[in-house]
């Protein structure tokens, strides 16, 4: 039975989604319970999978769909491949999904009204898509799953107000361009190698690395993935889409979508193409991309600094964090790549924590500007503690995970002597410190009377903002888990990095 864990991780939310559909929109609590149970079992399978990888000698699990064995030296069916990195990212996805499910409980009915069951269905299918992306070993299957995640997120974002619908439309256009470029790149690889399995493609490509069409294929795939992960000049769709989305959706997609796409980028760079190919042409494009990452970090930080809207600010910070990871991956250095992988996990944890805290604050006060934080430490001490932990991690103070991931990235930069990248990371930490200490100071020292009862801004549909009388326990619990995970990922960083290092193919 244990060998089927890999596929069961994915099947649980899939069936959960179907059952919630069948339950219908009247039985909201039953929908929530189904979703919660499915996510919980899925998380158990994901954790079990980590154990199985640790127990196995090869450090990876393979699962052949349809039982099709290798034939004539090629995989003829679709294969799943889970190594330590994939297992950790999958566990991250389903755990974030699970905790977010707890978070959604009380607010969904208010935000989604009649469409609660559709919301749960789409959300679980989004998790199916993300898990599938991480585990698949087939280049085309990856495309289908990317489209699953994209379609669900278009729909989920567009369920919000009218601005959300508009930003969702832009996301549709950008997302389709990205996915189509990816598909085109896979077509170029197929025309040159005649197979779609990632391992087989990589094996067959080795003796034709010099060919220009492979270079174009690589460039197209990278371009597609960068659009999807909102790498700096291509980030236009992200801030609006995530900040106007319903808060249940934004707090869930912001930690996961870009991180999973960074994982796909690492997968393409290190397993589909090999490090030897990607980094050999370093002088031509490797250097250039590290510089683009530096620009992304600096620009993301500045844009965040200029924001007065809390969610917008967080989304620009995501843009900067994507720059961290892309830069680390392109440094062509073991420490940089490890740092990039570890940063996927830690960034997911801290973004999740911050988004949950921000959503709670916005729901409680009905105000999405930074001034809403004034004097909040007295009114909402627990929420603000969670927010502070996330903020400290963003700034990079020990023992939070943000410190360690930044540490690995910086040591990667030092190893190859890329001082400007190091400087950009330090600069971004500084900006984060300014941003967050400004908020925390206001929350700790600010007096509520100073803002007084000036009128709250209307929400984008022109109606009065929704407020809660008190924060529900389910939200506090999920924030507690999220901020705990920020600390846990930080404290166990050596174990995690040790596992991740074993997964990296030698450069």
């Amino acid at each position, binding site marked *: 039975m244990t060998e089927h864990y890999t596929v069961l991780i994915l099947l649980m939310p899939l069936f959960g989604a179907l059952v919630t559909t069948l339950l219908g929109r009247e039985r909201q609590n039953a929908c929530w319970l189904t979703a919660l149970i499915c996510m919980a079992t899925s998380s158990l399978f994901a954790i079990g999978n980590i154990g199985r990888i640790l127990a196995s000698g090869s450090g990876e699990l393979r699962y052949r769909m349809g039982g099709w064995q290798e034939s004539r030296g090629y995989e003829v069916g679709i294969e799943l491949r889970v190594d330590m990195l994939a297992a950790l990212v999958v566990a991250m996805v389903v755990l974030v999904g699970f905790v977010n499910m707890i978070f959604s409980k009380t607010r969904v009915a208010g935000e989604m009204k009649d469409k609660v069951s559709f919301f749960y269905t789409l959300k679980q299918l989004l998790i199916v898509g993300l898990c599938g992306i991480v585990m698949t070993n087939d280049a085309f299957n990856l*495309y289908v799953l990317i489209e699953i995640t994209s379609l669900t997120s*278009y729909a989920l974002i567009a369920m919000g107000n009218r601005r959300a619908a508009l930003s969702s*439309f832009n996301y549709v256009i950008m997302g389709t361009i990205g996915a189509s470029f990816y598909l085109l790149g896979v077509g170029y690889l197929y025309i040159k190698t005649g197979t779609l399995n990632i391992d087989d493609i990589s094996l067959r490509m080795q003796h034709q690395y010099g060919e220009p069409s492979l270079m174009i294929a690589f460039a197209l795939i990278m371009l597609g993935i960068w659009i999807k992960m909102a790498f700096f000049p291509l980030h236009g769709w992200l801030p609006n889409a995530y900040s106007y989305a319903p808060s249940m959706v934004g707090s869930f997609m912001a930690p996961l979508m870009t991180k999973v796409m960074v994982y796909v980028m690492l997968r393409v760079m290190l397993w589909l193409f090999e490090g030897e190919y990607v980094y050999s042409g370093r002088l031509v494009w490797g250097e250039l991309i590290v510089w683009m990452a530096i620009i992304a970090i600096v620009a993301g930080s500045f844009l965040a600094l200029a924001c007065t809207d809390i969610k917008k600010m967080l989304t620009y910070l995501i843009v900067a964090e994507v720059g961290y990871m892309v830069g680390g991956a392109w440094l062509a250095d073991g420490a940089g790549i490890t740092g990039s992988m570890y940063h996927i996990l830690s960034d997911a944890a801290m973004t999740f924590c911050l988004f949950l805290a921000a959503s709670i604050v916005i729901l409680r006060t009905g105000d999405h500007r930074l001034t809403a934080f004034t004097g909040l430490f007295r009114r909402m001490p627990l929420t603000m503690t969670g927010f502070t932990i996330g903020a400290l991690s963003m700034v990079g103070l020990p023992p939070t995970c943000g410190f360690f991931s930044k540490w690995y990235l910086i040591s990667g930069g030092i190893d190859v002597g890329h001082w400007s990248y190091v400087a950009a990371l330090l600069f971004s930490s500084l900006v984060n410190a300014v941003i967050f200490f400004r908020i925390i100071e206001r929350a700790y020292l600010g007096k509520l009377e100073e803002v007084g009862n000036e009128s709250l801004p209307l929400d984008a549909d022109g109606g009065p903002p929704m407020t809660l009388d008190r924060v529900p326990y389910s939200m506090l619990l999920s924030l507690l888990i999220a901020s705990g995970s920020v600390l846990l990922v930080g404290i166990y960083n050596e174990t995690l990095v040790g596992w991740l290092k074993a997964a990296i193919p030698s450069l």
Partner: protein
Amino acid sequence: MEFLATGFFEEYIVPKFNYWIYVILMMIGLFAMITKNNLIKKLIGMAIFQTAIILFYVSIGVKAESGIPILGHEQHHAIVEEGQPSSEVIKKDKFANPLPHVLMLTAIVVGVSTLGLALAISQRIYRSFDTLEEDEILDQLRPGGHD
């Protein structure tokens, strides 16, 4: 006109013509997606963009002498009833490569799903803004506008 007789077309144009057209169609679609102002026009561009990629994939699978990738009755009969080995009965150059076809069935489905969802979102936008022109929508969202 004598170059026509010497197989100029067969030699230089035909082998690559499909690929040229796919690039041209793709760029038409991409240009429309980036620059068109009307949301529906953008979506038509998107559909053209996707079909261009499908055209590219299907062109990969073609072989000069190939027919459709379905076994004929005689071949089916020879293999299943008479038990002849399939590798002798089937001449693989006579069949188009089935794999790109399968992939493109999936891609077409994904394309229509995206189109349907995008149309729904544009109707939702029309409901709130009463227009489908991007510049007019942005005008309404400006701080000075009636937001």
